């Protein structure tokens, strides 16, 4: 363990009991005050997660018009039915609900950390929660009422249940998550593997996969039941299968080229139409190819594999918002044992600092001030992608490097 990491948050440990409530209260106050209207910001919500589109869908749904007949609503029917039945739908309740999601996310992070350490309560709880609630990449989309905050909470909840080894809850939450965001498919394999293995850190002592593969088929079956029943529910709710193309299809066919912080939109604005299907396939498959290698290499620590896949998803997703890379960055706080082995944390942080300044700046130059053009914003999304990529690569390195132990004078590791 690093001396730096352990000593630094020392001041926070004593007060970890009230950090979570205090931060949630502050967040709630901010959400209720709503100093700026962020709901239309391109960084904070994508066409798939935008609050305005959700409202449009809810309105059409209430009027008995098929929300999926137009090209605007890309939210899952599950959202539509939840917001028209059990969940109240107003700006005030939205502020409450989104804050609740963040609080849930922070709570889940805390529990994941506890489960990983195998203890009931830890001194870093407050810090872990703060890392989630104070991360600007996470709380700004939440203030913008982007549904990506809900998705993040679902991701963390499913990981939490998996690390507490509660299969039914995990699979239900995960099936819901997969419904509302198809790209979360990346988490399926590691989540199931985490359920049958254990969440404890084995990064420093790699070994073969410890779980029992025989437990896998029933889990898969249970997941299939959850998923299919949700699918049928969605179909019943929306009265047809048109929602599939509009919601799941959107993240595969990229019908909306509204600029966002990811790397897809510009690429496909520049592309000739007859190349589109091919490159859509390449971009989608590119996401999938990471699953197997990461799950195999980190077979002794599935939680770490999930963490890395979250980073890859945040970098290369079809319609990302800031909360996708934000989730990955906040999850770093779950793995303090790797900190001393990070190779270039300062470079990654500086890249992120640059990206965080350049993204809104170039967005402003292009769309408000009019002195720049789309290339400017695209350049800043590239910086952002580099920052995220650097973070992922460094975390992969640290996760592998930790197994070899502390560096000794005159000994160098050439290849892990």
């Amino acid at each position, binding site marked *: 363990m690093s001396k*730096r990491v352990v000593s630094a948050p020392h001041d926070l440990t004593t007060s970890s009991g009230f950090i979570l409530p205090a931060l949630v209260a502050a967040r709630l106050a901010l959400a209720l005050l709503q100093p700026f209207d962020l709901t239309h910001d391109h960084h904070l919500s994508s066409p798939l997660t935008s609050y305005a589109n959700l409202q449009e869908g809810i309105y059409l749904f209430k009027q008995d018009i098929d929300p999926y007949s137009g090209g605007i609503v890309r939210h899952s029917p599950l959202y539509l039915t939840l917001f028209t039945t059990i969940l109240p739908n107003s700006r005030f309740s939205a502020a409450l609900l989104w804050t609740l999601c963040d609080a849930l996310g922070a709570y889940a992070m805390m529990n994941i950390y506890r489960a990983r350490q195998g203890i009931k309560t830890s001194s870093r709880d407050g810090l872990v929660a703060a890392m989630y609630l104070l991360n600007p990449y996470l709380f700004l989309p939440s203030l913008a009422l982007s549904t990506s905050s809900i998705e993040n909470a679902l991701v963390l909840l499913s990981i939490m249940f998996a690390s507490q080894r509660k299969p039914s809850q995990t699979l239900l939450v995960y099936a819901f998550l997969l419904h509302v965001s198809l790209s979360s498919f990346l988490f399926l394999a590691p989540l199931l593997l985490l359920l049958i293995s254990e969440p404890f850190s084995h990064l420093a002592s790699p070994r073969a996969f410890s779980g029992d593969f025989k437990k896998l088929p029933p889990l898969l079956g249970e997941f299939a039941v959850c998923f299919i029943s949700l699918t049928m529910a969605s179909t019943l709710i929306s009265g047809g299968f048109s929602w599939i193309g509009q919601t799941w299809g959107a993240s595969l066919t990229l019908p909306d080229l509204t600029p966002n912080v990811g790397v897809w939109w510009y690429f496909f604005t520049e592309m000739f139409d007859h190349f589109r299907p091919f490159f859509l396939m390449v971009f989608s498959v590119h996401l999938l190819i990471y699953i197997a290698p990461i799950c195999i290499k980190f077979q002794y620590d599935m939680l770490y594999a999930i963490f890395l896949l979250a980073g890859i998803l945040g970098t290369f997703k079809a319609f990302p918002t800031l909360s996708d890379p934000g989730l990955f960055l906040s999850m770093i706080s779950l793995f303090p044992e790797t900190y001393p082995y990070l190779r270039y944390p300062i470079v990654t942080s500086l890249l992120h600092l640059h990206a965080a*300044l350049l993204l809104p700046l*170039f967005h402003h130059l292009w769309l408000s001030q009019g002195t720049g053009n789309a290339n400017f914003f695209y350049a800043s999304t590239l910086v952002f992608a580099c920052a995220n990529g650097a973070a992922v690569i460094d975390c992969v390195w640290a996760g592998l490097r930790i197994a070899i132990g502390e560096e000794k004078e005159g000994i160098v590791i050439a290849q892990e």
Partner: protein
Amino acid sequence: MDNNWRIRLRRRFRPEGDPNLVRVRRRKAIVSAFSRRVTFLRLILLLVGYIWMVALPYPQLGRGIYIDENALQPGQVNTYWGWGDVHNSDRYLDDLERLRDSNATSEQRAQYLDTEFRKIGLFSSTQTYQFTSQDINGTNTYAILSSPRAPGVEAMIISASWLSRIDDGNGALNLRGVATVLALAKFLKQYSLWAKDLVFVVSDGYLDGMQAWLSAYHGTIQSNLEAERLEMSSGVVWTALNIDYPGHSFSHLGVFYEGLNGRLPNQDLMNSFHVICSRMGVPVVLYDHLDPRSYPDRRKELDWLPEWLPGALRNDPEVRAYAYNARNVWRHVVHQASGRGSGVHGLFHQFRIDAFTMFALPATGPHGFHALGRVVESTLRTSNNLLERLHASFFFYIMTAPNRFMKIGNFLPSAVLISVAMMFTGLKEWSDSGWTQETLRNAEKSTETQAPGWTRRPRPVLRALCIMISSHLLGVATYLLMNSGWDGQNSIGGMLVLTMACIFAFGVSAVCSKSDRGGAAPIASVLKALNLCFASTIISATTVLNFSLAASLAVFLGIPLSVSSTSKNLPLRASKFSLYLFLSLGWVLKHERLNWNWEIMGVWLLPFLWIVYFPLVLQAGIVCLL
């Protein structure tokens, strides 16, 4: 022979032995070569950056202007503005002078202008406005000539403010500018070739009137502005020409182009204007800068080169070209970095309208209403040709002479190099703070004689970050304090801020020195590293937004932040700290002006200075105290 060459090449790139070992060795060699030279490298970068900045006016760095947008076709039309229209202008001028002599109020003036516009047959209206925070009010007049050939979704503005820019809006009247606008309205009404609406605006005051009019036109809400709603509106405004003609006649037309917050208009517009003027035989200058080379008899007043320079140098054509360009660039940097812009045209830029002021340089001749009218007519015809907005690539430039400019690639690197040098300094400080040379313990343990080993030590990152964040919060607090009810009491506010900064700095250093842990890196070096990295990021991000501001930051932060260091000697520490304090707060002397710009026009330099600049320098001061 051939084979031999190949083997040698292969050996060079793939030497024999363990490839991993070779790779590790090579990497170590590169890293150590780099880290040995990093001090030298950053000195070179700083030097090159500053020299580049000084070299910006050098004529060879720029190039001649050209028209990028082919649709503009400047100067390709016959102009019809004639002596009859000049006569009209003179009659309007007579009326305006009568109004001036009778000390007419804003309403009376607006009433007169409104009546005249109506007589011409235009839809005309007035707008009253009031800035509640500063006790500024007035009445604007505007008239709209609907396009005969298009549905009026686009518009061009011809404007004149009541006060001229000649003394920065302090009282000189722009009567001839207003008369030109009236006569132009009468003249342009006769032609049916306008594809865009023409909006004639005579704004009251200097900047305030146009700000109120533009805010109302675009429906933006400004909390301290009570502006009457506009009765009429037109389309999206693409271009605006602002006429400033304070003198009796003029010799040159001066171009003023810097907008609010460092935004510049599309260069094509000014280039077209330049082409048109040269076709019409009206000489163009930048700002009100006459070229001393053209006026040998007025050299004393126009040339800034000191007289004690040796004659050979002072009369060298390169030096004189440099001196002339340098004056233009300096003026540009002052206008752009202050964010205030260089005149009424600057207000248009915030709404994506390309605008500039043509300033009739007061002289005894030879030009007057005739030349001005023709130039404006032709420029309007040129912007009338536009089918789409001007291109996005022509917004980043520095005009070095009326017909020469610098492309972005030729000036941007100067500030970026300095920011890179700061980044390297910060990174070096960072890596130095993470290692310590363990001489004693190693010597005890090791039996053989070896160089003292380097061991890692933890860095108090979180504490350094806390200091940085709290100093920026202090910046926010001081900004709020100074902007709430300290009107006219800036000296008291300034003293208060000074005290707060001192208390903060001493408090931080006291807390940090008390809780210093053994073995950890000194907090001063971590703070310095992070401070430099952050400042460098700020500078390089600002370059595309407002180059002059970034360059000024590079000058004010580059060396000072790099050399901040603590020392054992208490008086030395205190004096260093007070120097940094002066650097961080010296600009407060201009607070009133900056505050006016921020409150009336939304120039964000003031909050930027409070929330970004002041804390950054204060952090360097704290580094000296620790």
